[in-house]
């Protein structure tokens, strides 16, 4: 039922965008261009300096591509969830969704599809493929399998953060600033954790596991193997998921509707 509804919503979203075809085309081209600015800047940094310690240009592009893919998968699937929740809470419509024969979180997630993110997903994939070829990495390796698994876990981490944000939106009926915090945290994930000192590396692994959003999947793929820090980050992501679901349930209990 979830996938059927999701497919229908995808079709509706696509039709809406097609109402302004020229705008959609310009937007997609510009988004691809915007996503390409990061690699261009990285190229210029590597042209003028020795770059980031222990990371060749190709390895850094692999990290940037992985980050772009993960962030845009989240953007495509559920990033707008807090905005959608805010809309329903402010209008007092959230109650009407309680009677639907579908889990409320699933229902609202379906409504959060964002087609703009396709441009980012494509750019991320191009960057990954380019660095794969340059670094002569193998698709048929245990490292690649772990890489895919860690990307999946990274998307779960994004989902947990977004559900936490959506829950806070219901509790405080305020969304201002939440996306700013999210974007700021994610901008850390664009860089290898090696640039930070050991205290911050531990913080971005065990307290807020931002490292899972690109650094750990890429280091595993590059052959560093599964280290204690990677396992630690995965465990923290699972804890984050549980916390986010609990917070969501708590927020729904606290929800008192428009007249409350």
């Amino acid at each position, binding site marked *: 039922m979830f996938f059927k509804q999701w497919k229908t919503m995808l079709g509706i979203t696509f039709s809406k965008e097609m109402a*302004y075809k*020229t*705008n*959609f*085309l*310009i*937007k*997609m*081209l*510009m*988004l691809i*261009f*915007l996503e390409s*600015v990061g690699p*261009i*800047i990285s190229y*210029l*940094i590597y*042209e*003028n*300096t*020795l*770059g*980031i*310690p222990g990371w060749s240009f190709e390895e850094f592009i692999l990290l940037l591509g992985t980050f772009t893919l993960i962030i845009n998968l989240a953007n495509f699937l559920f990033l707008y969830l807090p905005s959608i929740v805010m809309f329903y809470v402010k209008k007092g419509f959230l109650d009407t969704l309680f009677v639907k024969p579908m889990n409320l979180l699933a229902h609202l997630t379906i409504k959060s599809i964002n087609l703009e993110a396709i441009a980012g997903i494509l750019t991320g994939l191009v960057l990954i493929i380019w660095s794969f070829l340059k670094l002569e990495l193998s698709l048929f390796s245990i490292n690649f399998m772990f890489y895919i698994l860690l990307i999946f876990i990274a998307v779960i981490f994004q989902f947990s953060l977004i559900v936490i944000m959506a829950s806070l939106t219901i509790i405080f009926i*305020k969304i*201002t*600033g939440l996306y*700013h*915090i999210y974007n*700021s*945290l994610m*901008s*850390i994930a664009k*860089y290898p954790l*090696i*640039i*930070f*000192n050991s205290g*911050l590396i531990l913080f971005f692994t065990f307290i807020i596991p931002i490292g899972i959003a690109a650094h750990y999947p890429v280091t595993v793929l590059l052959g560093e193997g599964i280290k204690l820090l990677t396992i630690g980050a995965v465990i923290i992501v699972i804890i984050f998921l549980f916390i986010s679901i609990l917070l969501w349930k708590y927020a729904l209990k606290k929800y008192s509707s428009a007249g409350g």
Partner: protein
Amino acid sequence: MKKTANIALGFKIAIAYRFAFFINLIIAPLTFLIYFFLWHSIYAYSGTTIIRGFTLEEMITYYIMGLIISLFVWSNAEYWLEENILSGDVVLLFQKPISIFSQIYFFGIGINLLTIIIEAIPIYLIGLFFFGVKSATLAHTLFFIISISLASIIYFMFSFIIGLTAFWMKKINGLSRAKEAIISLFSGALLPLTFYPEWFQEISFYLPFQYLRYVPINIFLGRYNFFTIGIMIFVKLIWIGLLFILIRWFEKKAFKKLSGAGI
């Protein structure tokens, strides 16, 4: 008087959203951390004290001042115009005794006033005391303020022009993204322009985008003498004049388009 009313309105709305301003105060040090550690590691690894004319201290100052500039040099005039054009409310804006351009511009000034008080100064102090940001002489600080004031007018004008295209295109977020992409690349917002190839630097020399970020920061860093600063400010004023003529021409066309639609 009408302009002051628009400034006051912007200020009041900014106060209503003060929570978002405080959030920026929390986020800013996080962004500083990234640039601080990133460039520290790059300079250490490259084993040099100057890269493309910038010392480490200047590079960190470049990014932190860039962040402060981004608080002023921004505008969402295009979305505001798009919304009003799509809803038809733009007719009401044309009826007011002050031009649409002035209404939106002075409203933005009101918002920026609060930005100065609760964001820019604290953010600069955080940078100064915790991240080793350079301080500037009084004269350079003054010219820096003049420079970013003019930069904010230029940015607003770009935003307004994009907004006016909604009279023809209806939805303009594609063009808005194009504006973002071009400005981020050509203004030196992501990297000082000295890192770019010679041919790119020559192109950006003839474009107005470097005056939005690269030039004001270099004024703050004291990298230009007063004569050069004078020329830079003069060129900015010329760009403002040219963009103003373009806006007037666009507005007339847009008004005709509006009548043509039968509204």
